[in-house]
């Protein structure tokens, strides 16, 4: 009987197998190296990045993703600029899994590469590395001609959470591309300073509903979200119920007393989700002025709306009891 255990000798005849004439056989050898778990496999894999067969190079790109570290990142950097899209795309996916900050050295130079796909892949990989020296190139990439690159640049900046990046992120909330604006609004969430909250607030009037939705949601988790209370109340008449829903949730979370009536006005909306969030928010604010609105949905056709209305009334009663005691 042969050994019942998986072998750990994958590297033994690697040299020979990687030189097989048939590209299929080379692929099989590369798969084994990728799954070996042995960091020494990187030494073999990096020698295969110029294999004449694109399928083999694609396999190399996938296998290198198993080995987080600068040596592997350097090899992947070569594959990210591969002319074959299947190879470049596998390299981009592999790189994006890395966590070792030292990988940034090999990736950084690609942020200014001639091809947008390469720039995008490089920035995407830099996000999780969270290295401070990536801020400058990422800020420069906010001027990139390609919107997908600008979105990734915002991620790099946003993950770093540095207050010094607020002016640049604010500028990006006026980007011509809606995806970029949406990402920028989300990235501003961390800031403790008022200018960030002001920028997010302005985005409540963006022309794209998904940007407005993101702004309404983000204000609820921003340190200075309360400065936008009036604008959030105004957002309750947004043409998109999705935006209203997030505005209601944020107003509830921040317990904005003066929002009770405007939220109450949404409680009979045809979208059950909106009625539910209205009831829940009124419960979070727990102001007795909400009682007549909650009475409107006491017999709602949707049980989740009824449940939230019941809960809200309980919260109001509890708050009254607390005040009187």
């Amino acid at each position, binding site marked *: 009987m042969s050994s*019942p255990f998986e072998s750990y000798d994958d590297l033994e005849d690697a040299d020979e197998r990687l030189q097989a004439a048939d590209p299929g056989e080379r692929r099989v050898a590369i798969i084994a190296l990728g799954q070996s778990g042995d960091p020494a496999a990187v030494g073999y894999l990096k020698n295969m990045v110029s294999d004449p067969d694109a399928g083999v190079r694609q396999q190399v790109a996938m296998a290198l993703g198993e080995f987080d570290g600068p040596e592997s990142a350097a090899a992947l950097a070569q594959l990210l600029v591969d002319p074959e899209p299947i190879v470049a795309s596998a390299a981009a996916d592999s790189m994006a899994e890395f*966590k070792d900050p030292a990988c940034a050295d090999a990736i950084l130079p690609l942020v200014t590469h001639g091809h947008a796909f390469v720039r995008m892949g490089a920035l995407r990989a830099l996000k999780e590395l969270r290295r401070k020296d990536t801020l400058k190139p990422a800020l420069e990439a906010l001027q990139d001609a390609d919107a997908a690159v600008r979105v990734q640049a915002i991620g790099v900046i946003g*993950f770093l*959470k540095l207050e010094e990046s607020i002016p640049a992120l604010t500028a990006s909330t006026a980007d011509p591309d809606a995806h970029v604006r949406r990402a920028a609004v*989300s990235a501003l969430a961390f800031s403790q300073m008022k200018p960030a909250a002001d920028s997010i607030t302005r985005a409540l009037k963006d022309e794209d509903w998904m940007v407005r939705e993101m702004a309404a949601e983000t204000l609820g988790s921003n340190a200075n979200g309360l400065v936008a209370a009036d604008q959030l109340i105004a957002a309750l008449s947004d043409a998109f119920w999705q935006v209203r829903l997030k505005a209601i949730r944020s107003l509830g979370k921040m317990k904005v007393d003066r929002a009770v009536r405007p939220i109450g006005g949404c409680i009979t909306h045809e979208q059950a*989700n909106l009625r539910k969030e209205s009831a829940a928010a009124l419960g979070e604010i727990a102001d007795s002025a909400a009682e007549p609105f909650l009475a409107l949905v006491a017999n709602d056709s949707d*049980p989740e709306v009824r449940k939230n209305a019941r809960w809200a009334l309980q919260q109001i009663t509890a708050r009254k009891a607390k005040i009187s005691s």
Partner: protein
Amino acid sequence: MAMDEIVGGSSEVSCDVLVIGGGTAGPMAALKAKLKNPKANVVLLEKANVKRSGAISMGMDGLNNAVIPGYATPEQYTKEITIANDGIVDQKAVYKYAQNCYGIIEELDSFGIRFLKNENGDYAVKKVHHIGTYVLPMPNGETVKKALYRQLRRARILISNRYMATRLLTSGDGRVAGAISINTRTAEMLVIKAKAVILCMGAAGRLGLPTSGYMFGTYENAANSGDGYAMAYHAGAALANLECFQINPLIKDYNGPACAYVAGPFGAFTANNEGNRFIECDYWSGQMMLEFYNELLSGKGPVFLQLKHLHDKTIEEIESTLHKVERPTRGRFQEGRGTNYRTESIEMHISEIGFCSGHSASGVFVDDFARTTVPGLYAAGDMASVPHNYMLGAFTNGSVAGTDAMEFADNHDFADFDAADVAKEYDRVMAPTRREDGIPPNQIEYKARRLVNDYLQPPKVTRKFELGQRRLAEVRQDMEQQMIARNAHELLRALETQSILDCADMAAHASLYREESRWGLYHLRTDFPDKDNENWFCHTLLSKKDGRMTSEKRAVQPYVVPVADDEKDLYDKQRIRASA
């Protein structure tokens, strides 16, 4: 050599800690055991291949029970699970999970497993449950297994693929001594001596028969045939609350999740034929399943997952997760049916029954150290009794089990076992290969599972259960005397059939023992329609004593997080009528 030809024969190896099952809990248990004592030998035994085995073979679309600081507290989570499980919870293990799971998320993140993050790199947690916020989506969760395998290889765990464990070995004083397994392609036997054994063998998911009639079209990975439940039973371990079946709301026919946890945070919901919600919360519980079942039977069925009220762009985002992770053939299925989420709702149905504490509470009884009632034997994941613990629970409790099992192994020598037990097991396992003529396992399995549907599916009727037990006993006799296996692959199925029948017997026995109704649809007994807290506010433990299946009560341990009466009512009062 012919395909899967039976080679037979037997050999023996030994290790410090043996982990059986390489799905979710198993790899984590093996890693933690090795980390605890890097010099020790850790064997990870798997019926399929560790690379893609278990419930999460294609990854997972999100964490359902992430207790992340700032969104939920361990106290809140413990309370919520206690209520969802009708109070029958030993809270210590749940609380411990809740305290440890954030650390595990961070560790999984460091493995390269990707969770949804916002543009600041913080986890993007979503609200689905009644009180707290616990859902963390994983739109790129298809790489979970790849990342785990990478860690196993790096730690140089001894991995043994395509070996199905069949029985545990125990010493005269009842301590675990190892396990017996059989190669699924050659039928060679491998005896593994071990100081401690951790069972991570998944749910009993091939118990009921899917309504499609396709035997492998189960909700759970069809490889999860309840082998762990059967092995624990035969080794004398206690199994808890097996009458608390697993039943889930699923895409009709496809039989996979739709999935409310993915689409819910975006505004999708479960609706009846009139387009209205009929449950208060899409969190899966027995109560929710009862409401689902009632609605299906009422004139307001069928039941749907409704997305069509959402914006095109939102649906695009939902599709990108649903069709890539966990059960990626969902997209292909809907395409084949011509179902477009933008205009049509997804027809839902309820799954066949199974055991799974990952979703309900039916599992091998364990304490807060993942210890079973057999010394040296541990269990974690879907097959261990910590309720509602899902994938993150499998990782977290697998980690607890791995560490504690290695500590046990460090302090104990190998337990002795009787060599005659091995010879006896070899004969038992090989018996179907020695018959010239008989019934193939697929027919025996089909019949057993069809009987499970006919007689054991809730609502549970005593008379039906008694009839079911008689019919199942007849099938058992056929299985023991006439089942044939003509190659090693068919022997694998034959052995699985034995696990399935053991689980069916346990499901019937446990259900008849608890004389009340509890956990909504999971244990709805028509002869005892009410909850009876006076007599049945307890666990039930099923075990093998003197060769016979027996059940007994076990008190619920005092709560560490008290639950107020009005909080308990949250679930009971869900179905308040609109006119009331």
